């Protein structure tokens, strides 16, 4: 059994945790530095929380987003794409009309880190930034392929046990994202208003941006979003509503992890 190595650092207002099978020959320091650089790039460029980010400076300049640099145009286009895909339940346009890429930036950073790791020849890894996770392309059944889903904060009653544990090793899915009305940096602006509104949604998909945007859409869009998600029929979801209920899509039960007793130990990168 291979051991795992992981390192973590704070970025984008949350924590990133990178975990890899510890049988690689790379130099850990240069690798971790590069991963942090990637995340910092996204933060410095697109953060709405940092006054010195490129985005904040562009906003201060009062220029129209259509005149912004090419990477911003790509981000705007990506937002439009996922807004259309989710029937408008995911959007980068705030109710005030202001464009806010926060809902896409973290997922794109995760994607970029994963692409970087793969480019280094690393095939068995996970990239977890603030609870949104991508797995490497060759993750074998192990702790690395097993991902717990936390229950919504409002339903926790102080207990930290996970609601579900999924194992993605034998599936086509490599990405999982959870959105909730209680997360930091809430970018869900129109949560359902019924008394049984979704309060947390987790989506398992083949890429992290799809997973993240749909997770947001399922919380914001309630039943209509769920209908659209099921009609698309490509990915799986777990949704908690405010009435302590959990909804799972039909294929999700095949992803449930089974217990195992021998768990690899973690090493802390230094």
């Amino acid at each position: 059994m291979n051991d795992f190595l992981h390192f973590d650092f704070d970025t984008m207002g949350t924590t990133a945790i990178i975990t890899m099978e510890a049988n690689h020959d790379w130099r850990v320091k240069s690798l971790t530095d590069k991963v942090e650089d990637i995340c910092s790039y996204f933060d410095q460029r697109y953060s709405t929380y940092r006054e010195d980010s490129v985005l904040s400076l562009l906003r201060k300049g009062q220029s129209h987003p259509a005149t912004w640099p090419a990477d911003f145009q790509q981000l705007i286009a990506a937002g439009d794409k996922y807004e259309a895909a989710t029937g408008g339940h995911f959007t980068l346009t705030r109710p005030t009309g202001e464009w806010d890429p926060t809902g896409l930036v973290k997922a794109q950073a995760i994607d970029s880190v994963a692409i970087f790791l793969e480019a280094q020849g690393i095939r068995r890894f996970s990239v977890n930034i603030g609870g949104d996770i991508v797995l490497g392309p060759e993750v074998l059944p192990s702790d690395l392929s097993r991902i717990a889903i936390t229950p919504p904060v409002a339903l926790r009653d102080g207990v930290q046990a996970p609601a579900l544990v999924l194992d993605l090793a034998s599936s086509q899915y490599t990405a999982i994202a959870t959105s909730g009305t209680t997360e930091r940096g809430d970018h869900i602006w129109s949560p359902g208003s019924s008394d049984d509104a979704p309060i947390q949604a987790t989506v398992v998909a083949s890429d992290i941006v799809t997973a993240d945007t749909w997770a947001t859409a399922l919380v914001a869009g309630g039943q209509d979003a769920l209908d659209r998600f099921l009609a698309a029929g490509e990915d799986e979801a777990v949704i908690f509503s405010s009435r302590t209920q959990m909804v799972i899509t039909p294929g999700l039960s095949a992803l449930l992890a089974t217990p195992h007793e021998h768990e690899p130990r973690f090493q802390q990168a230094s």
Partner: protein
Amino acid sequence: MRTESKIVYGLLGLSALGSSIIVGIPKGQALEPVATVDAAPAQPELIPAPTFSGPQTTTDQQAPSDQATTTPLEPTAPATADQAPAADPAPTPNPAPSEPVSTTLSATGDAIGYRYGVVQLAVTATDGHIDSIDIVQARVDGGKYRAVPGELVARALSSQGTGFANVSGATFTSNAFRQALSSALSGVGL
């Protein structure tokens, strides 16, 4: 060695959630949506067909026959009046323990009414180690969605050492689950 590996394989597996939907509950009654005023039309696709993707092929709720099986606790009357009868834990024939070194017990806990339904668990343990926790009955009353309280099973699974390297989410519990689990555990001397 203990007999637990076989038991775990048989009772849990990937199909734990699927089986939880039907086990012990009369077909057509379990988890039928209870209409609420604002309820959308029922979403039958939200309930996975009770297929068994795992290796398990049995829906037998009872402990494997090679276990020493205690008499299940008498399920208490559930909180709601139209409660589906619990899977009657008809005591399986109680053969002599095949492995004297191991003691495997199973017990069914009380049916616990919680805010939105009823949950009742059965626990099997070998030498003080929980082999399996299974839902005897689980029903959700009301709500817009047709929901599966399968997280209760999963919670139990995780509590017995399911390893995972990552956690996704904002971060619940059901007091009903803890009560149900505690009730079942007391039946197996844990």
